[in-house]
């Protein structure tokens, strides 16, 4: 009950030191459908579950290319995601225009985080209601970042956000020690296995509702097409992470 006294706007602290509006914004991220990312030493893979508003509608895309070396997967308000996506694309383009090289990934995530933080310190603004998983390659290596409506950002070896993402994170906790040395195929299969843990009992993965994006040191961002997705989902039946341990 007391919560409602301090949650009207971003410029009010609660006695416990919380900004409730920012926390509510993070809830919006948790309502979005799951998306996850995982990386090896050479590749980053983004997997997401697409939602279909009704049978007549198409599936909502959740992964967007920012530049050849960078892509994002979103969870939360798609409209807010579009704004951030446009900002990131513009920054990458300007950087390329000036320096003829790719925007360093960490730096762009920092810029997005700074932008997000501004929205949490104003009476007239609301935080962005979207969390991003940013996958990118730069001279510092292979990166996977998560951004939050709060303006915080973290780098991960693998991470899942959105609805029922805890199940995927639990899968990751068991197997992430294998990811560094995984091949691209193993990485995609791990990603799809993690998503499978997070879907509802009556749902199933198919090439229409799943989205997989791949980025590599020598691989520009690539969406897997329907046929490739079908093949991977078939391979999923026989996939056993234990066999990967025996290889090493």
């Amino acid at each position, binding site marked *: 009950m007391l919560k409602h006294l301090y949650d009207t706007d971003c410029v009010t602290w609660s006695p416990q030191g919380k900004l409730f509006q920012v926390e509510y914004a993070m809830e919006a991220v948790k309502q979005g459908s799951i998306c996850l990312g995982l990386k090896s030493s050479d590749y980053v893979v983004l997997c997401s579950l697409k939602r279909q508003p009704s049978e007549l509608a198409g599936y909502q895309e959740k992964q967007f290319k920012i530049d050849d070396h960078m892509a994002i997967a979103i969870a939360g308000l798609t409209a807010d995601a579009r704004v951030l996506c446009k900002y990131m694309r513009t920054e990458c383009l300007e950087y390329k225009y000036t320096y003829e*090289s790719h925007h360093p990934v*960490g730096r762009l995530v*920092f810029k997005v985080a700074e932008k997000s933080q501004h929205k949490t310190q104003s009476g007239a603004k609301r935080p962005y209601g979207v969390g991003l998983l940013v996958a990118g390659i730069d001279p510092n290596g292979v990166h996977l970042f998560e951004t939050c409506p709060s303006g915080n950002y973290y780098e991960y070896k693998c991470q899942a956000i959105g609805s029922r993402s805890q199940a995927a994170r639990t899968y990751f906790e068991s197997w992430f020690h294998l990811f560094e040395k995984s091949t691209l195929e193993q990485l995609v299969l791990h990603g799809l296995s993690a998503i499978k843990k997070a879907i509802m009992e009556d749902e199933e993965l198919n090439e229409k509702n799943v989205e997989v994006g791949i980025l590599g040191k020598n691989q520009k961002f690539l969406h897997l097409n329907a046929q490739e997705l079908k093949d991977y989902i078939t391979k999923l039946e026989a996939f056993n992470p234990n066999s990967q341990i025996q290889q090493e």
Partner: protein
Amino acid sequence: MIFNSEISGQYEHTTSPVVTGGSVIALVYNGGVLVGTDTLCSYGSMAAFKNVQKIAQISQNTIYVSSGEFSDFQQVVKELAKIDRSALQYDDGVHPSPKDYGNYLARLSYKKRCKINPLYLQNVIAGFHNNDRYLALVDIYGTYLESKFITTGFASYFCKAIISNYWNENCSLDQAKQVIRECFKVLFCRDCRAHDVIQLAYVDAQGTHIEEPERVETKWDFNGFKQRANEKLHTQ
């Protein structure tokens, strides 16, 4: 770079340079890039400042030299240093590569050229990055050209023959130094605004090395000179 004149609306355009630096010669060699320039800044035809270091180290693996208006050179050095300092803010350990500097300078020069207020410079950026040699020319218009050898000013007229006869891109550092010294000998003889004290600098896998200034060997005690100086004129 924003000048007060641009804000107030009263434009002052650079129409001619005042204090100028001389030719720059840069050559790629096996394992790095070598740059040479003299140590003179001329005030028109007067050899006003004879001991100037015109080679700037921009970063651990990048050198910047230019010929033309020296105050513009000094300003550009500050502008390029700004880029690397901003990297500190982002805290990600990513530093600009020599190519980033070259392209940035090209964009800057082009912008100022479009406002008819150019940086009165022929710029040379030399660097060594990812085991690759980097050498680029950015001219007064903002043209960006990567190349294996670069000459600016009078060197473009006098020295290209020497370079093509005695240099190749896989020669040793000493060979490249000899070629540049020979070029500056010729320049001192033929270019009125040249000086016989030069400075060499090179970038390789170990970083940048800027050497002490040296005097090129020139010979002036020819017998012919002495005879002509002492001979009587027809009328005497």
